């Protein structure tokens, strides 16, 4: 199974342990509410957010519709500026390409910027098996690397950690006692990471966008680590999800406005880095070599049909922050990489429903995600579509398919309805005890009383 998939029962089991952890619940509640409020405030300051969302959606749709052309244009533009582009169909092809780059350059230390695509291909494990030291330099990712955990949120990876957790983890690096105060903690992280930036042979980042007309890679960060990772090491490797393209810099401007506001509520993030090729003669900064690995890993299967809209996702995390399920379950329940509504849709599409059968049902279909999506992906409707596919592809369990079939047969006539509901009334005392939905309901709630049908009063 790939890094993304998981067995049916895992979601519930993982969520249950997170529900029991008051500490994590508090952190999730506070952080998602803060990010949501920030987005709404930032959207509110725009003259016409609906117009901007519509433009963003249109740009994404046009790009995906003509993706081959834009990928081609991007590759040619970047190669003209001295960069190298390679396509990787699978996670293994991508990690093999990056391992080869590191091996050829005799690399020992790799500094990484935040990249969900690198989580998706389990890059760190692959490089560490080759004996490399790989260090995450995004503060949240660094904290999780120290904790031996995976990101719980695509934008705020350490969302479930409190300041006390962070003090303990950072303090353990150099065996010092750190007070749980932001300045002291960021200073410690800065000290620890500075040494990594200076010694790294290869820097690896993801990419928020890539501009086809100029061959540029765009990084959106708040800590500046993306800049250091892409400028100090002699070799910079970018993992680019193949759908991250935008046609022009004008289009980029629209999507940047949406991304920062929707992710953190900022008009722009602290650093927006546009990299166009490696360092050229006469320039002071930048790597000697720039390699872009264009990652497919299941994405191009989405390009046809109704799931194409999921390729419009700009990875802002707005859907996570409004999701009433995510704020209870936390990120891990969805698997180690993509979480929340976008993860519940994307993961089954990338790995196949049979490898993520619980994710389409990890939602109450409340629609808050669709309302929050800056590029208007109908996330809850895609979840409904995936549920239909679960049944059509017989991934849904046999008992469930039989139960619905029998139920529909019984309730297709008023007589069948009368008969089965009368029987249900007789059997009601057992409902909470027999295995099945009744017992699952009764485990948390009082079973409703079947008081006598309205239609019988009406006669």
């Amino acid at each position, binding site marked *: 199974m790939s890094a993304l998939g998981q067995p049916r029962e895992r979601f*519930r089991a993982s969520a249950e342990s997170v529900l029991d952890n008051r500490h994590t619940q508090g952190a999730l509640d506070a952080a998602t509410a803060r990010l949501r409020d920030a987005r709404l405030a930032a959207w509110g300051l725009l003259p016409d957010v609906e117009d901007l969302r519509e433009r963003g959606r249109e740009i994404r749709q046009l790009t995906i519709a003509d993706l081959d052309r834009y990928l081609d244009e991007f590759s040619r533009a970047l190669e003209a500026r001295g960069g190298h582009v390679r396509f990787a169909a699978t996670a293994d092809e991508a990690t093999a390409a990056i391992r080869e780059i590191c091996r050829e350059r005799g690399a020992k230390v790799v500094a990484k910027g935040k990249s969900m695509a690198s989580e998706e291909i389990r890059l760190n494990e692959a490089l560490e098996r080759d004996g490399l030291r790989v260090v995450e330099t995004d503060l949240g990712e660094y904290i999780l690397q120290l904790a031996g955990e995976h990101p719980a949120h695509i934008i705020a990876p350490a969302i479930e950690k409190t300041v006390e957790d962070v003090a303990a983890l950072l303090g353990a690096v150099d065996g010092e006692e750190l007070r749980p105060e932001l300045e002291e903690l960021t200073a410690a992280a800065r000290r620890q990471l500075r040494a990594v930036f200076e010694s790294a042979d290869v820097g690896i980042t993801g990419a928020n966008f890539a501009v086809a007309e100029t061959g540029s890679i765009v990084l959106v960060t708040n800590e500046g680590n993306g800049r250091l990772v892409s400028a100090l090491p002699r070799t910079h490797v970018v993992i680019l999800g193949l759908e991250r393209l935008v046609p022009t810099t004008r289009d980029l401007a629209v999507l940047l406005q949406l991304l920062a506001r929707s992710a953190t509520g900022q008009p722009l993030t602290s650093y927006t880095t546009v990299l166009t090729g490696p360092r050229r003669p006469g320039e002071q900064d930048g790597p000697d070599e720039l390699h872009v690995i264009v990652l497919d890993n299941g994405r191009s299967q989405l390009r046809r049909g109704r799931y194409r809209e999921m390729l419009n996702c700009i990875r802002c995390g707005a859907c996570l922050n409004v999701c009433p*399920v995510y704020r209870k379950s936390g990120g891990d329940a969805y698997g180690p990489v993509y979480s929340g509504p976008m993860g519940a849709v994307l993961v089954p599409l990338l790995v196949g429903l049979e490898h993520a059968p619980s994710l389409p049902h990890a939602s109450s279909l409340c629609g808050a995600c669709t309302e929050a999506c800056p590029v208007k992906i109908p996330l809850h409707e895609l979840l409904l579509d995936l549920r*239909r596919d679960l049944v059509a592809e017989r991934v849904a369990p046999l008992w469930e398919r039989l139960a619905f079939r029998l139920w529909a047969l019984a*309730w297709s006539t*008023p007589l069948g309805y009368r008969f089965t509901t009368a029987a249900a009334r007789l059997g009601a005392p057992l409902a909470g005890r027999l295995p099945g*939905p009744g017992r699952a309901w009764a485990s*948390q*709630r009082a079973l409703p009383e079947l008081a006598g049908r309205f*239609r019988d009063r009406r006669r």
Partner: protein
Amino acid sequence: MRVQLFATCVGDLIFPDAVEDAERLLRSAGYEVEFPPRQVCCGQPAFNSGHHAAARRIGRGFVRAFARDAPVVVPSGSCATMLSHYLPELVEVDPFEVWELSAFLDAAGFEPPRTNDGRTVAYHDSCHMLRELRIAEPPRRLLRRSGAVVSALLRPDLCCGFGGTFSVRQPEISAAMADDKLAGAGAVDALVTADPGCLMQLQGRAARTGGPRVVHLATALARGVA
């Protein structure tokens, strides 16, 4: 004028009093209320679980049971959504004229009886009603006209955790969501909702945890929340 009342399966089986109250409100608003006797369910439980063949079978039953010459009024936001947004495409029929109860009464300019003078209630938006039907003000307006003070819920945007089969697939998360909703109501005489699904979820959880009284909007208007 005649209306067709769709009780919904949850209404018919579990909340017959609320359906009766809905009927009473419609009558006092001056409507002749017909209860099409062959009605069963809108098919939503199957549809939302991906079982389209089953949902289609139930949906055709709805189409057979209801006439085209009078509006269908439903005391349930989510069933009204199923009927207006999904059923036409599913069973390939023209949409029925479907109204959620409070939107219908509000549009008709209905003056509810002053059953709630001096009472404070909180109103819980059902997700389908809020986000797909975009009905948020009518139920609040009716409650206010009945004399109630409508206090704001903490995080009114959050789902109560019902979500149809979600409530039994993920019972622990579902209950935790209900707990947040119940706790967010604060000190009120009742928490009011216009959706039998949310009502079943919130009542059922409140019965276990000692949360506030939860009542259907139709009951709150027809009989008051006390």
